[in-house]
């Protein structure tokens, strides 16, 4: 017994260290949203609002100088930050809707198909998930430019090409998540509905769809998050459109102000709320079959033969 509790204590300490490792940087980032510009940076500064300092005058933002809340309003009023966040949210919402519809239809058709017919499609889906994103990004860039040159109505690089590129990955992801649930829940209830005289459409509407709902919501949320957070693909296919990750990246590399921390902190709080909502959905779906990350994990595992 003491041996067991000693092991337990050891594991608990390690887990504690790892959780600190995961959260300390985020906590420090949030704390530095309240960081005042350094005295040296403020020497020649005339105005009353410290946070109006341009990024190149602000000095090192990784050093703590004192407390201020002005970065929150500076961030919210920045001409490039909030529009970029809105652009990202619009693309992510559209990507989530399109990807989930494509994924749902494919999942329904494929789940009960013979493995041999399904195999090529499966390979294609897994390929879209495992090919490194940078490869997909440059391939999409070349492809979109060629399409623009040769297909009259194809949009130029921007909002729509970012969306088109992101749906590739997200549709595959949605298909796997929804199919895992669809296969997991079996066909007995659908068969029963048919036996009781319900047609294919009303069976889908009244039986299948409601039971798939947790997986549909989960895959839409996953798609939204991946799309919203995505940097590499949009960075190559954006033309002149700026998404939030693109603005962030250039800020981190070429001059950042705590206004970014402030916006990130606001979004972190919103995400925390969203994650709790997702957790509740996942919990409902897991109580019957498997959770979404589990489903993705086991599907990817199934692909490589385990």
């Amino acid at each position, binding site marked *: 017994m003491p041996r067991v509790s000693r092991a337990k204590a050891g594991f608990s300490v390690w887990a504690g260290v790892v959780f600190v490792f995961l959260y300390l940087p985020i906590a420090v980032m949030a704390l530095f949203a309240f960081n005042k510009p350094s005295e040296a940076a403020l020497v020649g500064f005339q105005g009353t609002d410290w946070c109006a300092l341009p990024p190149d005058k602000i000095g090192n933002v990784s050093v703590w100088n004192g407390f201020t809340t002005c970065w929150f309003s500076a961030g919210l009023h920045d001409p490039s930050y909030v529009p970029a966040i809105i652009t990202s949210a619009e693309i992510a919402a559209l990507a989530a809707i399109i990807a989930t519809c494509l994924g749902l239809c494919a999942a329904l058709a494929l789940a009960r198909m013979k493995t041999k017919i399904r195999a090529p499609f499966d390979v294609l889906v897994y390929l879209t998930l495992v090919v490194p994103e940078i490869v997909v990004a440059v391939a999409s860039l070349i492809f979109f430019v060629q399409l623009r040159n040769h297909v009259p109505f194809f949009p130029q690089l921007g909002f729509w090409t970012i969306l088109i590129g992101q749906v*590739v990955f997200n549709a595959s992801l949605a298909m796997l998540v929804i199919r895992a649930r669809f296969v997991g829940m079996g066909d007995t209830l659908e068969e029963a509905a048919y036996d009781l005289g319900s047609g294919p459409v009303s069976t889908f509407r009244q039986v299948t769809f409601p039971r798939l709902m947790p997986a549909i919501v989960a895959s839409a949320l996953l798609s939204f998050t991946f799309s919203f*957070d995505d940097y590499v693909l949009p960075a190559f296919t954006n033309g002149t459109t700026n998404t939030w990750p693109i603005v962030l990246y250039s800020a981190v590399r070429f001059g*950042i102000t705590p206004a970014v921390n402030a916006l990130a902190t606001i979004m972190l709080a919103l995400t925390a709320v969203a994650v709790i909502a997702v957790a509740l959905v996942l919990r409902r779906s897991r109580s019957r079959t498997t959770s979404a990350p589990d489903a993705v994990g086991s599907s990817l595992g199934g692909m490589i033969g385990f």
Partner: protein
Amino acid sequence: MTLLSEPKQEKAVGVKRRGRSFKPRYPTWLALPALVYEVIFFLGALGILVAFSFATQTGFSQITYGFSLDQYKAVFDPLYLSIFFRTLMMAAIGTILTVMVGYPVAYWMARYLSTYKLLAVLLIMVPFWTSFLIRTYALKIILDSQGFLAKTFGLDIMYTPIAVGIGLVYNYLPLFVLPVFGSLERMDWTLIEAATDLTARPLRAFWDITFRLTLPGIVTGALLVFIPMTGEYVIPAILSGGKYEFVGNLIGDTFNTAQNPPFGSALAIMLMVALSVFVVIYIAVATKEERFGA
């Protein structure tokens, strides 16, 4: 009442008889939109990438298609090979570190938690649901040579391979912990009890039972983090300050600054080839190991 319900019943019986041979199945054409989409925008894009890698650049943004191996020959320059080697090594080291850091956490969650299990899963997920760039930037604040770690402990590791390694583990840890936690959750802990009752030492019981049974989960989880680590772009760019580029950054540079798409395409193809070779060897070794276990 009776008059109304009578024909309904008959109809239901009729449907039932017809439906007996029915297997719930959705029409195959439902898969078409997704299939067409993926073929055009994924395979089409990769196809053009392959075509570009065999093309030659004839002037500024002028491409002549053909079958030239010049771009591939250029990839086999020692300079580029060393970047390929560095990328695969860093991804391998990052994966091993992620396994070493993450497995005990997943084990602790599955074995010792009950009431707070869901909370622990959530806490693992939250960083994963926050922006990748924000997380990397947050790490930069901590690792900065004027920052907290450097000033308090004298650890100035910003812009070194160590910083990149920490960045890899930090960003990909949740992606490993969750699937491994899934396979540990399916573990039957009474097997361990049986083994210890039969006088097995705890470490031996762990090694012979728990580790063997969760090995497929570990192999899958490791692959889940290794593949994106190999294609990583953001972490080396931010945490190494451009000093320890991965192949991904090199590919990006050939498109952004060097304006040499054919060479970038060849690099991208070679990255996929290198990754596939690595993954095939890895799977061969891992499945062999597993067969011994069984």
